[in-house]
């Protein structure tokens, strides 16, 4: 390895180790939390105003298009949170940083919530548009599998008494589930599905009118800020719970 990449690697590694210190992480979390909470509230107010009131109806879905502003960001976050959870799990497996395991653990229920919102709003949109609540096509089925992966991950954490073993088992499940992410994203291109192909992230550019793209992006920002806020909150709770259990064990042994 030449000098430059090695130096860059050492720098990221040292930064990673600094933030892997729970005390530093807690301090950073405390400083970030009010900002992300404020941003979340603001973006939701503006985003929902545009999504529900100040945006045009669609030429064939009419007002049903407004479900899209809740559904699509939830789907993005369902995938994004899983990618983040899997990355943290990989870091936890390789470098054995408990903070990485705890970040993945803290993210899982939020990601499961996003996936559930995606499935439910999708059904509510499918009934008036397609004429059915649910079909077993590749897109819908792979998202349902994503939901079960989240649930299985959360269940595995509860299945062990030793947090180290629980973290390892859960991390392996999270990493195995990563194969589902490209399947979800490209299912609509690889196979015939009832679900339509991507509208925003396509090689030809967005196929959504700018007047509808704006509320969608505002809502996506709101979802992201919501995730950061709740993740910080849950991560703090996880760190404190871990400390409390260490203290309890120390007292029991003395």
């Amino acid at each position, binding site marked *: 390895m030449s000098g430059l990449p090695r130096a860059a690697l050492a720098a990221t590694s040292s930064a990673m180790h600094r933030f892997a210190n729970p005390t530093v992480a807690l301090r950073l979390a405390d400083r970030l939390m009010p900002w992300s909470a404020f941003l979340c509230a603001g973006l939701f107010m503006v985003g929902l105003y545009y999504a529900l009131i100040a945006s*045009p*109806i*669609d*030429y*064939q*879905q009419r007002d049903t*298009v407004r479900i*899209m502003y809740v559904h699509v960001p939830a789907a993005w976050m369902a995938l994004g949170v899983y990618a983040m959870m899997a990355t943290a799990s*990989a870091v936890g*497996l*390789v*470098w*054995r940083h408990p903070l990485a395991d705890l970040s993945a653990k803290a993210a899982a229920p939020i990601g499961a919530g996003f996936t559930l919102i995606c499935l439910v709003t999708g059904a509510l949109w499918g009934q*008036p*548009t*397609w*004429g*059915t609540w649910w*079909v*077993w*096509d*590749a897109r819908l089925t792979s998202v349902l599998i994503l939901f079960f992966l989240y649930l299985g991950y959360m269940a595995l954490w509860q299945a062990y008494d030793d947090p180290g073993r629980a973290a390892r088992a859960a991390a392996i499940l999270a*990493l*195995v589930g*990563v*194969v589902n992410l490209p*399947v979800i994203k490209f299912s609509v291109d*690889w*196979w*015939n*599905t*009832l679900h*339509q*192909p*991507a*509208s925003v992230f*396509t090689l030809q550019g967005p*196929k*959504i*009118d700018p*007047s*509808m793209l704006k509320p969608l992006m505002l809502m996506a920002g709101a979802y992201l800020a919501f995730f950061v806020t709740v993740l910080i909150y849950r991560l703090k709770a996880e760190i404190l719970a871990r400390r409390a259990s260490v203290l309890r064990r120390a007292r029991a042994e003395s």
Partner: protein
Amino acid sequence: MTRKRRRLYVLIAALASLGVASALVLVAFQDNLVFFYSPSDLQTKSLPADQRIRIGGLVEAESVMREGLTTRFRVTDTAHSIAVSYTGLLPDLFREGQGVVANGKLGPGGVFIADEILAKHDENYMPPEVADAIKRTGQWKPEGSR
């Protein structure tokens, strides 16, 4: 090699082989993963008669005929088309040029007897004024021609 580095390599190797394995499985089950067949698929694949299948495509222009609750129309993928007969209520989006998926059986005379019609929605979203403006300039592309 440090233990961390070894763990990293094992993880990368495991993920790579898992990826290859799942890709092979998905390719092998290709036929079972499609939600519907296109009219061209019906020409090339020999599907057993009397089997329930779904076919999908566009409702061919000027092919829709209604007799009471029964609707007859043709589903096309621009290369081939097939006649469909359906009795029941149609989804709101059903119209000529619209993507649909029909669930049913291939009946006598090559007519597909559907007992369920689902409307397919495409990936385009726009306000009615924009749609009208595009139609006025003659840039309107029906679904399926993309």
